């Protein structure tokens, strides 16, 4: 690497703010910028932030690496601003997209139920004769003329993106591939999504839903990435090491994103970046176990990291639609700083699910909000500094918050301002704790010995009382909790996931056949790497099988790590894989049956290519010293319970030296967040400038 190229840049675009993290690889120094997001033309906000660094003296040509997380596709889906999509399906199966799972979500008592709007309505759906059987055999040949006619009529209807979803295409993709050739010969500009490429997995509805999402959002992402690429060129950020964050915790190069086929992998990139940062930057804690608490404006996202890796799921719901790509296993509750407190008709105090969001925001923002929120409660209780919000660039109106609290909560329930504020906080904190507890129980995880890692603007304001409720003793507050997800963008590898379904009893699958399937998936991965301009030499492949007991309706992912040497998989390896399945089943579900037949449902390959990563730098010895006077900004009366406030010492995070220790009650303020230490908690700055909180002086 040339010596003059020394910066790496991570940019995370959220709904309201865009966070940028610039790493100087020569010095290890990290600088942060926060600018407003520009939803109408999102690349503008990104480029504004980049300009800020440039104008402060960073030569754009010396930025050697650009990594990006964005919610642009997710937002386009939430606002239904995707492409006009047509769909080709196997003739005779129009009801598949209507019935979906047949189940209802939402309030079970509401019989005026509606499914989410169709991405490709029936009027833009065409039936194509041709049928593949369950073993991949051709039952009926593809009607090529029908494909041609369908393409012409969809083109005439103004469709720009076409999804092709044929039954059993995961077992034999030839009909879908031939269909694409015909579509492109008739309609070369069309954006084509094949279900056999987007998600070659058994179960027609999740595959169709995922393919439709890809078709709907692909053009949005491609347009954006092209815009952004041109913008980066224009401001002089010439590096071609440009990457995009994915839901699986890895990145893909821009060159892969503009092909459009992997758009669905980017839909949960935000939470994935935060989890990735936690797993990578909280090294030892991540080995033992971490509960992440990302508390932003509208919600709190909770995830677990065990043995250094975030827990994953293979299917998630997004805007009520199934999406079958690997993503962080996460639970979300409506408990954010902007969550609105209200009194229901039975005079119960409720918090959420409505949120004041960023606009109008909490009452104290003074932007027209009238409903009291969690942030308003936090300011009334003295935890937030009205004069020091976003480093003092914004002031908060405490009085307005108190008036709203008394008006909307205090009066109807006969409570004082402090009682109302403390009540809101108690309800929110206990709900987050209950959610951690139940989510942990569901995943067979006992969080008590874990470390709590709060981030997002409000995470560290609430972390200690959540930990108190859970009996957790250790909290890890990273140096920049408000820009933590952006930090995660500098901590990832290129990761591509490949899957292929082939449902067979395991005892009928020879090791040679399994090897063949894996080899073909890996060949596809290599081919894509070459297309993306990446080095295939350093690619690492991780193989997994989706396995279940015969008759079960869902599968477990079984890792084949360590199996299959130079000669490929052996019969003994297959026996070992079976044993691993039983063990994993016992671990997750509490029991296993090694005498029961099992079946393989899918083969998975995860491909990894290393990219340069941020290395946390030990800044010095963290020998314990009492926090010096110059780090103390004063004291503030804060209410940890309703009964009587206490004077909490207020510290400025950036002036606390390595090794500095202090006792709660204390409040630590910094540009992008606030950390609250109730009485009984102790804080210490470690050698990496992390703020470690421990309870009872442990």
């Amino acid at each position, binding site marked *: 690497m040339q010596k003059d190229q020394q910066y790496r840049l991570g940019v995370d675009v959220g709904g309201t703010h865009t966070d940028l993290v610039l790493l100087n690889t020569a010095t290890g120094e990290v600088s942060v910028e926060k600018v407003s997001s520009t939803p109408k033309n999102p690349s503008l906000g990104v480029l504004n932030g980049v300009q800020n660094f440039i104008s402060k003296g960073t030569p754009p040509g010396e930025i050697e690496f650009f990594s990006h997380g964005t919610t642009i596709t997710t937002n386009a889906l939430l606002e239904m601003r995707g492409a006009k999509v047509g769909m080709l399906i196997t003739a005779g199966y129009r009801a598949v997209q209507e019935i979906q799972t047949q*189940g209802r979500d939402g309030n*079970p008592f*509401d019989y005026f139920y509606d499914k989410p709007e169709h991405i490709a309505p*029936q009027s833009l759906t065409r039936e194509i004769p041709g049928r593949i059987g369950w073993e991949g055999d051709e039952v009926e040949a593809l009607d090529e003329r029908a494909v041609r006619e369908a393409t012409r009529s969809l083109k005439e209807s103004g469709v720009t993106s076409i999804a092709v979803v044929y039954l059993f295409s*995961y077992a034999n993709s030839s009909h879908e591939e031939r269909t694409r050739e015909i579509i492109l010969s008739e309609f070369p500009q069309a954006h084509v999504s094949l279900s056999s490429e987007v998600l070659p997995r058994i179960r027609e509805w999740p595959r169709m839903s995922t393919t439709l999402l890809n078709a709907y959002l692909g053009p949005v992402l491609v347009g954006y990435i092209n815009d952004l690429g041109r913008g980066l060129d224009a401001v002089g950020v010439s590096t071609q090491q440009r990457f995009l964050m994915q839901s699986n915790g890895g990145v893909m190069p821009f060159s892969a994103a503009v092909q459009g086929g992997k758009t669905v992998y980017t839909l949960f990139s935000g939470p994935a970046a935060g989890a990735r940062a936690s797993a990578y930057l909280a090294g030892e804690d991540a080995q033992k176990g971490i509960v992440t608490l990302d508390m932003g404006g509208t919600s709190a996202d909770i995830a677990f990291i065990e043995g250094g890796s975030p827990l994953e799921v293979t299917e998630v719901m997004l805007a009520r639609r199934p999406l079958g790509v690997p993503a962080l296993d996460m639970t979300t509750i409506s408990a954010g700083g902007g969550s609105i407190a209200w009194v229901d008709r039975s005079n119960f105090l409720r918090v959420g699910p409505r949120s004041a969001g960023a606009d109008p925001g909490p009452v104290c923002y003074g932007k027209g909000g009238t409903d009291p929120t969690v942030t308003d409660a936090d300011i009334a209780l003295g935890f937030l500094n009205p004069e020091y919000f976003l480093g003092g660039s914004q002031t908060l109106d405490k009085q307005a918050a108190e008036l709203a609290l008394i008006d909307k909560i205090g009066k109807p329930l006969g409570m004082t301002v402090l009682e109302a504020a403390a009540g809101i906080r108690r309800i929110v904190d*206990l709900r987050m704790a209950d959610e951690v507890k*139940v989510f942990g129980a569901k995943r067979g995880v006992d969080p008590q010995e874990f470390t709590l890692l709060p981030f997002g603007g409000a995470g560290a304001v609430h972390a200690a009382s959540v930990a108190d409720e859970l009996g957790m003793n250790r909290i890890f507050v990273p140096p920049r909790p408000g820009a933590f997800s952006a930090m995660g963008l500098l901590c990832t590898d290129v990761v591509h996931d490949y899957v292929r379904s082939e449902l067979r009893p395991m005892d009928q699958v020879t090791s040679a056949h399994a090897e063949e399937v894996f080899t073909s998936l890996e060949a596809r991965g290599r081919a894509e790497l070459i297309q993306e301009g990446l080095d295939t030499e350093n690619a690492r492949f991780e193989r997994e099988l989706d396995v279940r007991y*015969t008759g079960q309706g869902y599968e477990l992912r079984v890792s084949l790590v360590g199996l299959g040497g130079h000669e490929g998989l052996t019969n003994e390896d297959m026996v070992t894989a079976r044993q691993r399945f039983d063990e994993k089943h016992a671990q997750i579900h509490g029991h296993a049956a090694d005498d029961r037949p099992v*079946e393989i449902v899918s083969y998975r390959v995860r491909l990894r290519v290393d990219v340069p990563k941020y290395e946390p730098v030990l800044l010095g010895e963290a020998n314990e010293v009492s926090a010096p006077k110059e780090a103390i900004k004063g004291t503030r009366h804060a209410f940890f319970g309703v009964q009587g406030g206490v004077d909490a010492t207020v510290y400025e995070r950036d002036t606390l030296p390595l090794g500095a220790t202090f006792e709660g009650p204390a409040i630590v303020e910094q540009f992008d967040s606030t950390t609250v230490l109730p009485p009984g908690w102790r804080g210490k700055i470690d050698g990496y400038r992390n703020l470690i909180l421990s309870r009872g002086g442990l």
Partner: protein
Amino acid sequence: MTKSTQIDPVTVQVLRNKVASLVDEMHYHFYRSGYSTIIRESKDFSCVILDRDGKLIVPPPMFFHGLAYRRFVERIFEVYESEEINDGDMFVSNHPYEAGMPHVSDMGFIAPVFFEGELIAWSGTIAHKADIGGTNPGSTSANSTELYHEGLLLPPMKYVRQGVEDGDVERIILGNSRHPDLVRGDIGAQVAATQMGVTRMKENAERFGGQVISSAFEVILKGAAEELRAAISSLPDGTSSAVGYMDDDGVDRETPVKFAVTITVDGDRATFDFSDAGPQAKGPVNLRPSMVECCVFYCLVGALGPDLQFNGGMVDVVDIKYAPDTVTNATPPAPVSSYQKSNLRLVDVILEAMAHFAPERAIAGSGSSGSLLLSWQGGGREGHSTMQYEIFGSAYGGGQAHDGCSMTATHLSNLHITPIEILESEFPCRVTEMSVIPDSGGPGEYRGGLAFRRRYELLQDALVVRRYEKAKFPATGTSGGNDGRKSRFVRVGVNGDETDLPAAGRYEMKAGEGFFIDKAGGGGYGDPKKRDPEAIISDIAEGYVSIEGAKRDYGYDA
């Protein structure tokens, strides 16, 4: 009602959230440790926390079980003296009459929660068992004529005594089951989930105090009662009746089964009178008050505002009347196995009568749900089960300002359909059609939901059991709307010849033969002539209404 102890609203809300989280945790724990596919895939079970009288605190996902537990608790108090109910006890029953359980296959376990010597709550679970004896494999039946045909009956009895499980009752249950291994595994999981509820509630009591929990429960139940009372008092006083019919009871094929209700609203009270229901049926479509109550409160919450709280406090606000020996108040040993299709029929009837009071939530009849079972006689597909079992939803009726949802589980039912790719991979059949039936939604200003056609080709001989209805009495239209399309069950011979069969029955079919199922569409709401022409144009474009149908049903010339 006694005056509740002073308790602050924050603590009430905290405890309500804690009970909701606990129910969620019990549910998951049960699900992950259950053995049978009934637990694992269909999730046909519920977990609850009840107050000391058996009243539901927060609804479980399978909410309609929630109110049935109270009858079980009441029966325990009738059978046992209070000093005989002790810390560490757990009771079992599957009795539809004595304990209010949905049918014999559904087995309930409940355990008292004691704190400092006081009974403060109950923890309970109900779950469908793979086989509990009776005349049919799997125990459920479309043509039983006595409760005794439906399996072993357990009146409420102790399964665990003060922490000691002696295993006698378990041996009786397993000795009566065709699948004792599955049943043993599920019972183990169920006992553990019930016990988890007890343990967690005791932890909550340690932390908050037993009296605080009792007071919070009282406030929560009273809150639901007051919400419902307020909602009822906002309705006009008056009376409204409705009647509806089910095709037949599965035994006597000539006689339709009559469901009827008269609702009277007087100030802040409502009375639901089911005295005009038909006589109790010979076949297994009878209901008991515990199920009728679930239907009544489901409809009340649905019609008066779906965000009302659903818990045991509601029961104080409503009177329910029955005549003896009727299909909605059967006398033992009348059979009850196919209770769910009766529930769904009754829900349609109650909602039709409710429309008089809450026209903004009026909805036409819906398409009900039914099952299909194929028992493969040629050994099935190697390595897979020979039993193929599917549940099909249907469609909602149209409602005030709302088209009915197409192709969905409806009302009390919410089970998933099995994917075609899974079916063909596991069983020797081919699903050759899964299509939208145009014009199947009942015409109306607001159209009923559409039904689907699903066609099967058999690659081996099979025994086919279909349990459904609505072939004679479709989902009814309302307020000038027309009925939805009737259901069909059609056998297709080797030569392609088609024969209509009854919607409920058992048939031997040969490889090369096949059949198709047309589900019933939802009823229409309001005069079809008033339908927005834009909506008709869109329906034609989407293939939901044919051009001929638009002309015939809506008077619309394309």
